Every structure is written in C-alpha cells, then in structure tokens.
C-alpha cells in the first residue's frame, strides 16, 4: 500500500476544522478513515441509497434531528398541527381510508381536530397506504407520522 501522506494530512485538516468526528473515503481497494473523539455508540445509520423523498401530505416529513434508521426510511403523511386524530368524519361513519387503498392528491385521508375545528388532511401525492400509524381518537403533535405511503 502506498500512502499519500499529503492527502492524509489534508483529510486530517478537514476533520479538525469541522465539527465532524469521522471521514471515510474508499476508492477501488483503498480505504482511508480518519476519526476524532472515540468509537461509535449509536450504531450507524443511513444505508446506501437512502434518497431523500419529496414531502408527502400536508406537511413535510418529520425532521427529528436524528438520522432515520434504515427501517424508518419511507414516505409519511405527517400531522400539520397539534390535535386529535380521527380516521372518520363521525363515530358512525366508516374510515376515510384503509391499508391498501390507493390515494390521489387532494383526497381526504383523516381529520385532525384542534380548537373544536375539524381539519381535513388531504394527500399531496398519488400512492398506496401501507400502514396507519395512529389510533383514531388519539392526540397527535406537530409532525407526528400518521400514515406510511408508497408513492406511485
């Protein structure tokens, strides 16, 4: 192995100047990793191909401040405000949507009640409902994930 020390120094300098703790570069059979502070505790993260998706639903996907774990990657409809989540317009009527249903932009997916107002949440994308993540009648906070969808 031939070590390009100048390149390595450059990498170290970059790391030092930044807030990072690690830089890893791999090319062909070469791999360089420089790291600061100590070993990892939280297991790593974004798997290859974790492409950021366009926002879905009335609000953007949650930005919880942490990189999403591999299994969390996907498209979600999130709550645009704090309130109570309802899957149907009234206790007697049936749910707006069920798992497996196709959805289209503008289609009502659920209601979030806040300050006695029933706010209909509409889809902004076309796709299929994969999972319903909140029980009807439960409180939701801003950005709470309501539905997981597979966009088409």
């Amino acid at each position: 192995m031939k070590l390009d020390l100048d390149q390595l120094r450059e990498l170290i300098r970059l790391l030092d100047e930044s807030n990072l703790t690690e830089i890893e570069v791999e090319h062909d059979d070469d791999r360089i990793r420089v790291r600061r502070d100590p070993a990892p505790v939280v297991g790593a993260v974004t798997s290859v191909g974790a492409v950021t998706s366009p926002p879905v639903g009335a609000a953007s996907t949650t930005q919880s401040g942490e990189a999403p774990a591999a299994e969390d990657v996907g498209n979600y409809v999130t709550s645009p405000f704090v309130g109570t989540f309802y899957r149907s317009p009234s206790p007697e009527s049936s749910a707006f949507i069920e798992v497996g249903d196709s959805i289209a932009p503008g289609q009502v997916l659920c209601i979030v009640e806040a300050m006695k107002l029933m706010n209909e949440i509409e889809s902004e994308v076309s796709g299929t409902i994969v999972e319903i993540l909140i029980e009807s009648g439960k409180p939701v906070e801003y950005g709470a994930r309501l539905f997981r969808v597979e966009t088409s």
Partner: protein
Amino acid sequence: MFEKILIANRGEIALRVIRSCRERGLRTVAVHSEIDADALHTRLADEAICIGPADPARSYLHIPAIIAAAEVTRADAVHPGYGFLSENPEFAETCAQCGLEFVGPLPEQMRQWGDKVSARALAKSLGLSIIEGTELIQDVEDAVKKAESLGFPVLLKASGGGGGRGMHILQSREEVRAIFETARAESRAAFGSDALYFEKFIERPRHIEFQILGDKHGNIHVLGERECSIQRRHQKILEEAPSVAMSDEQRRDMSATIRRAMSDVGYLSAGTLEFLLDERGELTFLEMNPRIQVEHPVTELVMGLDLVAEQIRIADGQPLELPEHPLSPRGHAIECRINAEDPVTFAPSPGKITELHMAGGTGVRVDSGVYGGGHVPPHYDPLIAKLIVHAPTRAQAIAKMRRALSETIIEGIRTNIPLHQRILAHPAFEEGLWVH
C-alpha cells in the same frame, strides 16, 4: 385547584415555571418547536408536545397550536413566561374562551398598559408622576413645535415600541426635521403603527422598577424595587435589588403610592412598574410590564418568596398569603444575564455547548435553559442562563458575582461573560454610580 399547567415558552423561564410547579405537585406540559425536541424544557417537563417548526411564528407564537396542545393534554392553565405571547391580550382571551386559566393579568389590563400613551395617561390619573411628554405627533411641523415647547434634548418614541426599540434622542429642531419621517416609517414597520410622541430626555437616569402582585380578592402587594441601570442599547444585562439610590423612606413612600394606584385599578397577577430616577432623586413613571420579568429572581432572593408560585396561586383564585406590612429587602442580590453572543461584537453565537460548568456554592442561584452537550438554536433569544447571587451586603454580592463568573465554563459557543466581568470590575459600578 389546578393539576396541570402548560408552559407556552422555552428556555430558562420555561424551566423556571416547571420548578415552581413541581415543588407544589403540579404537573407540567412543555410545548416545543421541532428544533427544540432535545431542549431542556422539553426534556424536563412531565409531558412535551411538538407544536410546529423552528420559526417562532409557527410554533411559540402560534396561538391555535398552543391551545390545541393544552386541549389534548387536558391542561388547566397556561403560563406564558415573558416575551412570546405573554403580553398578547388575544391569547389571554382565547385561553379564557377555551376554558384555560391564563396566568397573568386580565386582557383589558394588558391592553391598558400595553400602549405607552394610554399607560402614561392611566398612570397620571392614578397619581403617579409621569415624565413630561407630548400628545401624539401629527406631522413634521407639529413635531418641531412640540419638541420646542418641551425643550431639547427630547426623546422621540414610538407609542407601540418597547424594550428600548423605536427611540431617538434629538438635540435640535434640525435633528427633528432630519429624523421624523424615518422614525415614522420605522415604527410602522416594526410595530404596525406610526403613532409617535416626545418625552423629555432625562440625562444619566437610573432605571428603577417596582414589583407588584395583585390577587383576585383585591389584595395588592408592592415587593420593593430593582435597579436595572446597566443596559446595552436599552437592553438590560445586569440587575440588582435593592437599589443603592433608594432610601428606606423613599421605598416606603413609593410602595404606598403604587399600592394605592394599583388597588384602584384592581391589578391582577405579577406586574412591574418601571421608573426613571433622575439626578435630583425624582421617580417618573415610564411603563408597566404586565408579566413576570427576566430579572424577577433578585426580588425573590431579597424578599424571600417565589413570584411564579404566587402568580399560579393567584390564577387559581387563591388569596396572596404575604405579610400585611410591606416586606423589607434582606441583603443584596445581583443578576447577570448570560447571553450566547460574542462579548465584543454582540453577534449571536448559537451552537453546541461542548463544555459546561455553571457556578455553584453558597448564595449562588442559577436559572438556566441549556445543558452541557445540548444545542443553542439560532432562532430564539440569546439569553441562555441567569447567574444570580445573594449576600448580606452589596460589596459581598459583587465579590460573590465576580467569583461566580470566574468559575463559569461555557465552551462551544461564545457568551457575554467577559462583558459582565468588565462591569463587575468597574470602580464606578462598585461605588454604585451610574455606569454607561
């Protein structure tokens, strides 16, 4: 009796409210923006609800989100802290309409005192000396006329302004002509109103404020004064209680006057009457802040009470349980506001706090809103902590604050601690003289 209180704020004041609630067995709900998901108030409240993105207009200032958060958590009352919605009468009204007790004055009281011109008129009618001033100014010619009749130097003020914003010191009629239209446009942009007026400009005034509490049973207590003369660009940075410039007699007289005045209007909850003290020893009313103040701890320390707990008791309909006779200050207290900002340029300095040691030991109180390993987001007030000391004498309090500042370690961001150290080392400050 309240069981759960929602705190419509963040940072040190949110934690301050959590403390008083928790010591009394009240449950707390924190509301937070997305960027505050790991903030101290979010971590330490019994419940936490995300109410919007980092932008305060869409979170901490967004009334429907806060009310909805109170609804889903079944809170009994809302404490607004200071800043944000604390002086917004519509918010107080909305709380009332939704069956939530607002911890603060009545909406009409907030309106009465919120506008500086009507506040001045009200104070005058209640027997408080007000600073010589004019009616609202019509136009630039009217401005010249009014300024001359008042006598230069004059202070041009925006009726809707506050916290030192929207003010100009003018020395001559030429300056009036030069600045008037600009000031009007500024006021319109900043406060949504172009109502301007003049006040007599008092040179080298001390800034003295009196803390009051009123309950729903008509009791008013005046809890002594604070001196807040150390300011930077009209922003307070260091406060103390009592003021070296107030004699016991003057304090007693002023307290009686203020108590009468506030009893006449049936003032509710905590409030602060701000005065200017001129070099002849005259106190003139400046404004009334209908909320808890940043600097309330210095009063708590010298008076031996918990103002936030009293606010909550008052909102809950309980009578004040303070001694009938005015309390006398015990010892001396000083507060330094620690801001996340460059100590020279005063530019905000958000970021991750990599190392942290807040001062401790005897007679030191820390009210902070950050933790070591946490982040100071760039979206909010740079006030990250208050260092407050209490000692038997002012000289001992100064020595203690110097000691406390010297042992405070905050790395990763810059703070104004060096500025405080310069103030505390200043001989004029030590002598209790006016320090610019």
